[in-house]
């Protein structure tokens, strides 16, 4: 039962994108079409799964002081593998994700889960956590991409939708639309899924480098 909880919490209660507010950059950038959203979600999930498993297996070996650099090297290694696989087997996806594929390295979800979960838990739990978080990330991306593609472009998975196609709101597929749809989605999640809006401010909490940069947060007066 606890294992199932580990999986489902990533989807709604601790959704990495909509509740923990991690990984905003790829969410905004790759949600212009559903197919690239799924590609991004899958790539990030694979990296997350591999890095969570390896980090959790090595959690007693990695010295505490240099753990962040170690995690970054491990994650960068997995990202390079995924990059090569995508380039070889899905060149179209590689083109549509572009710069955001190597940037999975600095995706806060992956470093965040390593820091928050994988270095404290067993391998199997960490793997389940990674799958749940990956599913949550992919679902949130798809929800955003569906709104932006259907209303912004009048298509779904590239298939034209009769009425919407000639009445598309193309601003939704551009940068401002990304911020706007993301804001609306978080407001909806706040309204229906969490009983009260979070008291603490966003941005720094949950960020893996929070401890390092506490000085910045104090200066902000958070």
């Amino acid at each position, binding site marked *: 039962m606890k294992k199932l909880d580990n999986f489902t919490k990533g989807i709604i209660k601790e959704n990495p994108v909509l509740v923990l507010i991690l990984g905003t950059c790829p969410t905004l*950038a790759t949600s212009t079409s559903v197919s690239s959203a799924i590609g991004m979600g899958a790539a990030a999930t694979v990296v997350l799964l591999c890095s969570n498993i390896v980090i959790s297996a090595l959690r007693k070996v990695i010295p505490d002081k240099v753990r962040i650099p170690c995690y970054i090297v491990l994650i960068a290694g997995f990202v390079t593998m995924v990059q090569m696989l995508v380039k070889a087997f899905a060149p179209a996806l590689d083109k549509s994700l572009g710069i955001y594929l190597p940037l999975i390295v600095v995706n*806060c979800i992956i470093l965040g889960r390593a820091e928050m979960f994988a270095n404290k838990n067993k391998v199997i739990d960490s793997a389940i956590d990674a799958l749940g978080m990956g599913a949550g990330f992919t679902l949130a991306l798809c929800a955003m991409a569906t709104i932006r593609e259907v209303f912004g472009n009048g298509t779904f998975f590239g298939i034209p939708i009769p009425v919407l196609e000639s009445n598309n709101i193309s601003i939704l597929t551009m940068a401002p639309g990304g911020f706007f749809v993301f804001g609306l989605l978080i407001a909806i999640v706040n309204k229906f899924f969490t009983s009260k809006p979070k008291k603490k401010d966003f941005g720094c909490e949950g960020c893996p*480098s929070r401890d390092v940069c506490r000085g910045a947060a104090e200066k902000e007066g958070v």
Partner: protein
Amino acid sequence: MTKLIIILLSAVFINNYVLSRFLGICPFLGVSKKLDSATGMSIAVIFVMLMATAVTYPIQMYLLVPNDLGYLQTIVFILVIAALVQLVEIVLKRYIPSLHKSLGVYLPLITTNCAVLGVTILNIDEGYTFLEAMVNSLGSGLGFFLAMVMFSGVRSKIEGADIPKSFKGLPVTLIAASITSLSFLGFGGVIENLFA
């Protein structure tokens, strides 16, 4: 010369890193509450972007490409940037303590900033020469600075506004960011026509 000016201006206004390429959103949303911290963060970003490009560009061109190690780009770049940020922090602390005091707190934050890694990789992908790459990094940093400073002004207005409960905090900030980014869309096409 004209090409350099076009690269600089389009990096600042048209392909603004934050508002149209969505890189560096975390500091954009997290550290933009007050003007002085927004300024400090952006100056640190400009500084690190220039340093990172100056170091990673030769590494890619003279070390990785001749030895057929192009696939190591991601790993090498992130490590170099992380080490560089640490080094800069130590040097500043030792020799220029006053600058360390004002920028130091933001430096560790920058290691995992996607804007810095993004600019170094894009410089290679675009096939720039070394000078063009440096100008592009400067422009990207200035664009980040502009967006941060503008947005901290916008946010100080939001603080006092009466907003629906579920929009409080991040949602209203994102919608404000959307309007700020809308204003930057107006620059599209201006720069090409300026020099045409």
